[in-house]
């Protein structure tokens, strides 16, 4: 049977989409995954390692399996013969360890025969053609899901040439006096990491970080909360998305206690400049916007797609309206899918895009 579905991007977004399609009954031979890295956690793993991340921020639904249940909490409960993960899960307090998550990815990769569908190729361009989409000259596919992930690390322009600078998501150790730029989850993690390594830490930030369990409020993960978001005029919608992207980290004593102690000891303070630090860790996340992603920028240019601010305007099911009809689908998952689903950059969000994509693939009369 010819390949009819292409997934561009072999990271977690592509992996979730692949697992979802396999769950719908598609064979590995019907799906082609294009990417640089055969390990779906290959891009995520070193970033998590760089910030010494031990636990996932996402909760029990934060996994790559196509169905919400059984999640990692259920697996952990069964493996440990302990109800605690399930109890924590119903209280929205279960956060699997990175090791548990990576083990789950490895197991799912094996079970879904991911490697049989993987094609080692960097796709620079996806173009609408007769009968579907030309995917970087590798063939024409009726249904394409683009999940290229974050378009590179963001560094403040004024620090770009500073030799002291390292990005939080790049491998690094800690100097004795460290300035951490940023105020999100990665920054908060780096404060604690540097303090634990014995450093004096200066938190350099322009604004006070928001304290919330997840970047996007929980109701916005479901249809009810999304209804209001999707009704908003474009400008307002972009404004909301910008707000959701503002730095935040979860509330709780895990964060507060060590910071308060370090503050009392004079080892932690807040400043507006990095002056005097031996090392500057930029926990400033990723570049934002489709125009930083060459493939998406080209797509917009080639087809004159509608955009708003830094987002490509998508339909509610995360497809590109101008390039999707009854016979073909172009869908964006992960960060570029935020226009349709504000939490698209989370595993849950990736699943939402994947499930809508799956519905279109399965119900397509010319599949």
């Amino acid at each position: 049977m010819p390949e009819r579905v292409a997934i561009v991007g072999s990271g977690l977004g592509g992996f979730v989409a692949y697992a979802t399609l396999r769950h719908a009954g598609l064979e590995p031979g019907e799906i082609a995954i294009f990417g640089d890295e055969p390990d779906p956690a290959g891009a995520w793993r070193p970033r998590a390692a760089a910030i010494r991340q031990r636990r996932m921020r996402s909760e029990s639904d934060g996994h790559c399996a196509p169905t919400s249940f059984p999640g990692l909490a259920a697996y952990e409960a069964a493996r440990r013969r302990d109800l605690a993960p399930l109890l924590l899960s119903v209280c929205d307090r279960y956060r699997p360890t990175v090791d548990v998550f990576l083990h789950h990815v490895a197991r799912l990769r094996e079970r879904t025969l991911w490697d049989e569908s993987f094609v080692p190729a960097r796709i620079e361009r996806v173009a609408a053609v007769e009968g579907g989409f030309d995917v970087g000259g590798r063939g024409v596919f009726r249904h394409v899901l683009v999940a290229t992930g974050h378009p590179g690390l963001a560094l403040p322009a004024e620090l770009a040439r500073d030799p002291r600078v390292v990005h939080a998501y790049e491998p690094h150790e800690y100097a004795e006096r460290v300035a951490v730029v940023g105020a999100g989850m990665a920054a908060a993690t780096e404060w604690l990491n540097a303090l634990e390594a014995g450093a004096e830490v200066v938190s350099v930030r322009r604004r006070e970080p928001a304290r919330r369990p997840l970047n996007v409020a929980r109701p916005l993960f479901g249809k009810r909360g999304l209804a209001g978001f999707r009704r908003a005029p474009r400008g307002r919608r972009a404004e909301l998305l910008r707000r959701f992207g503002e730095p935040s980290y979860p509330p709780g004593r895990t964060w507060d206690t060590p910071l308060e102690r370090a503050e009392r000891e004079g080892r932690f303070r807040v400043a507006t400049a990095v002056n005097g630090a031996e090392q500057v860790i930029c926990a400033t996340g990723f570049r934002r916007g489709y125009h930083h992603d060459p493939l998406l920028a080209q797509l917009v240019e080639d087809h004159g797609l509608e955009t708003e601010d830094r987002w490509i305007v998508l339909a509610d099911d995360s497809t590109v309206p101008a390039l999707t009809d009854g016979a073909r689908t172009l869908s964006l998952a992960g960060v570029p899918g935020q226009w349709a689903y504000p939490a698209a950059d989370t595993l849950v969000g990736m699943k939402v895009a994947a499930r809508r994509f799956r519905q279109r693939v399965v119900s397509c009369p010319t599949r």
Partner: protein
Amino acid sequence: MSYTLRGRVETRLAAALLPVLVAAPLSVVLHKWWPLQLAGLMLGIGLALDVAVYHRFLPYQPGWAAVPLGLLELGLTVAAARALELGAPLGPALAFFAAAWLLAQLLVHAGLPLVHLTWPEDGGELGRAGPGLSVAAPVALLAVLGTAWAVEPPTVRLEAGVHQGPLVLDHAQTVVGEPGTVVRGGILVTADDVTLRNLTIRGGEYGIEVRDAESVEIDGVVVEAAELDGINARLSQLDIHDCEIRSLPGASTQGIDISFASQLPASVVENCVVVGGMEGIVTHMANVLVRDNRVRSTELRGIAVTEMSMGHVEDNVVEDALGVGIFCGDYSHCSIEDNRVAGMRVDPSGNPTRAGFGLVAHYGAIATVEGNTLERPPASFIGARIEPR
């Protein structure tokens, strides 16, 4: 989980489906409508809360909220069941509610996310199946409840005050008294599925006479000054709860006499107080469970299971009985456990079997005993056996 209103309703209906499907045959088997009525009540209260409360005040519902919300729904269901006098026994009704709640949790946490991939992000909506379910489920339930209501025995409410008897109940019905309702002259029951609740019966040959009837319930009834027995049942199966039999004239009267029903399911006598009379509670050729009763000041035996009866006698208190407290006689098989017999009086007739024994097995009867509190050891006569459990 962030439910939409439609999602809440559809999920509620999906979760109610199995309890309703279980309740329907259960009602048929038990010859009682309460399982179905309870399932309908649970669904109705749940839907009302979904629409009026949960949807407004819970834009996001964490998993743990199912516990307090479940307790709220339980409280409202119990209150509504009492107000509507469903007649559902508390224990089984609680078990039914708990099972339905657990099933609902399994469904929303595991079942629905497995069978309907987009259920979580769709706010609990069931896609194309949803509207059909939303129409079919309430229609089916209403049809069944309507049938139940239509064929259910009528309820007769007796106002407070004295009603001249005897009343003859020859078809299925529920007779409920208000506080202060008195029936003078007794009640005769000759039909199945009769319930007597909250009545005082004064005088009459028998206080309550039951003849050839099954599934008779006597609940919260006081019998005073009957000429013969307080409650007398022949060829019948009945459940008696929370009764009081008093002012028996003595000589040849019994408090409760259930006889000639060995081919019928067991009758139950529970939480009753019997004062005076020849025998407090007696069975002849019947299957009975006699539990948690208090019998006082009898002249022949406190509790007697005799003439080839099968009886469980548990957790009763017998006081001030003349001759014998608990009696298992005439080839009966009795299980006698955790009773307390005190203040026995010796029969002045000199009959050695009536020498103030707390427990006697007589004439080929077999009594299995455990945990009874007696003032003197039990005794067996004429081929009877008393065996520790």
